[in-house]
């Protein structure tokens, strides 16, 4: 039987703005009845435009925010139960957008060691974990380097290694590639997939780059604080118009197949890659083309 890693139950969160006297000026409902579940070992992506509530969900999972209504469970621990706070943060690590805000030490290996050292892991064990974590993200060659000489993608991998050193069951990545160039983006996405496949870490990836979600097990689309779509990447990307309505995009090949279909070329829905497009187009052409109509 599959085990639940993360679960939110009818989660509601409101940002309350107050004036100088403390009277409520404005209430913004950032999350509205969000119920989702992520199983151990899954790779789930959350898509949504800026302000759709996806980061607010992420901040609830390692108890940076506390629900206004509803509940959030990590490994069946309630995030509102202060007794479990440290255990929750140890089992659900978080990686943010800007790598420069997450690195604190002057040497890569010391940065990775910072987390376990803080929770009192014995020295020998710390070094073992640093070694393993740097290997997992492919950064062992840089262990004695200064982080400020690294590229954005490398810094982000060091930040991920720092989380891995805490031995988490799950990593939540909040737009980890938004500030990186194409090469850095590829490095980070490759690392994240390897952690999921090889180390068995559960991944919750928040992004608005569509090409980063096509390899996920499941995709959740958020809009105005609600979950509006959920399914496999193929199911989600079959609905081009709906996604565009939520201010999102689809990969170029997906959109092209969709546009051709509208013009009467019988292309299948939910094409995700160049290879799929090529196979589908040559197949429909062989079936209908070359004078057969």
């Amino acid at each position, binding site marked *: 039987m599959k085990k639940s890693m993360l679960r939110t139950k009818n989660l509601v969160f409101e940002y309350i703005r107050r004036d100088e006297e403390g009277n409520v000026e404005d209430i913004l409902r950032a999350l509205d009845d969000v119920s989702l579940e992520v199983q151990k070992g899954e790779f789930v992506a959350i898509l949504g435009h800026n302000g759709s509530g996806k980061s607010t969900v992420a901040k609830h999972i390692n108890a940076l925010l506390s629900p206004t209504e509803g509940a959030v469970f990590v490994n069946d621990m309630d995030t509102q139960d202060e007794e479990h706070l440290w255990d929750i943060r140890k089992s659900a690590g978080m990686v943010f957008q800007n790598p420069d805000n997450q690195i604190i030490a002057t040497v890569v290996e010391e940065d990775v060691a910072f987390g376990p050292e803080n929770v009192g892991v014995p020295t020998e064990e710390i070094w073992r974990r640093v070694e393993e974590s740097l290997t997992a993200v492919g950064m062992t060659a840089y262990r004695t380097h200064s982080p400020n000489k690294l590229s954005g993608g490398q810094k982000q991998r060091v930040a991920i290694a720092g989380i891995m050193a805490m031995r988490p069951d799950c990593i939540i990545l909040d737009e980890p590639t938004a500030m990186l160039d194409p*090469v850095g983006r590829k490095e980070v996405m490759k690392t994240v997939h390897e952690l999921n496949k090889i180390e068995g870490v559960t991944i919750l990836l928040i992004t608005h780059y569509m090409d980063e979600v096509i390899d996920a097990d499941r995709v959740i689309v958020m809009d105005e604080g609600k979950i509006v779509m959920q399914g496999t990447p193929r199911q989600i990307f079959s609905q081009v118009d709906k996604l565009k309505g939520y201010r*999102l995009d689809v990969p*170029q090949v997906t959109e*092209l197949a969709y546009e*051709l279909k509208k013009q009467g070329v019988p292309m299948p829905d939910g094409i995700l890659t*160049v290879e799929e497009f090529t196979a589908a187009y040559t197949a429909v052409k062989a079936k*209908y083309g070359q004078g057969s109509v």
Partner: protein
Amino acid sequence: METTRDLQECMVLDHVNYVYGEGTAYEKHALRDINLVIGKGEFIGLIGHTGSGKSTLVQHLNGLIAPTSGHIYYRGNDICAAGFNKKELRSKVGLVFQYPEHQLFETTVVKDVAFGPKNMGLPQLEIDMGTFAALKEAGVSEELYDASPFELSGGQKRRVAIAGVLAMQPDILILDEPTAGLDPRGRDEILDRIAQIHAEGNRTIILVSHSMEDVAKYASRLIVMKEGSVFCDGTPKEVFEAYKDLEKIGLAAPQVTYLSEALRQAGVALPHNATTLEEAKELLLADWKGGIR
């Protein structure tokens, strides 16, 4: 939009070199023998790996950095010559930095945009007219004029920052990754607005970008930088035709270019590779119709 290569109207870079920290242990040759003519009214996409010299190059264009050797001419005058009016150059060559919203500081949108012209010591009427024209050109809607710039969404803030530069009436508008961190719709809105500024305002646009899809769609000329040199310079079609060379320097072509190549290898007789979605659609529809008969 008229493009003119009359040298009196252009920006000319002649054997420009730039060395950071010359004579120190950190010496770095950031620009190597750059020779370029930037014609009036061009829409140029400037691409290259992080660290390839793109930012150093654009900072030369408005005189923020002076070349170590070589010359830069603006409308026939050497911008490094004694007596050259750098202040005027900086209003004529407007630079919108990365994350320009970090530079907003005034209490209202209008005041923020008026800051530049006010600093130039223009009469009040001219300041006001320039400010409103710039706000309109950048697509800032009227109800936001008196709002605090800090209350706006990411895309709106960015338009205000662009308006602040447009208020100086630049001939050349340089934008350093203007879509970084925006969601897909926000990205399209900013790029469409930039295309409109180009078409209507008689301005040269230089767009620094990591997105090959975006430069393919909007620019008529691409300059690719590699390790401080110009790696190639041509139309998007010419540059992306050599996508294998781009891959060697850590860049790539748009997805539809790879798709055209894959289709041709699978026996679909496309006359040439596509660089934009629209073009791919036209080529494939023509192929489809030709095939059915």
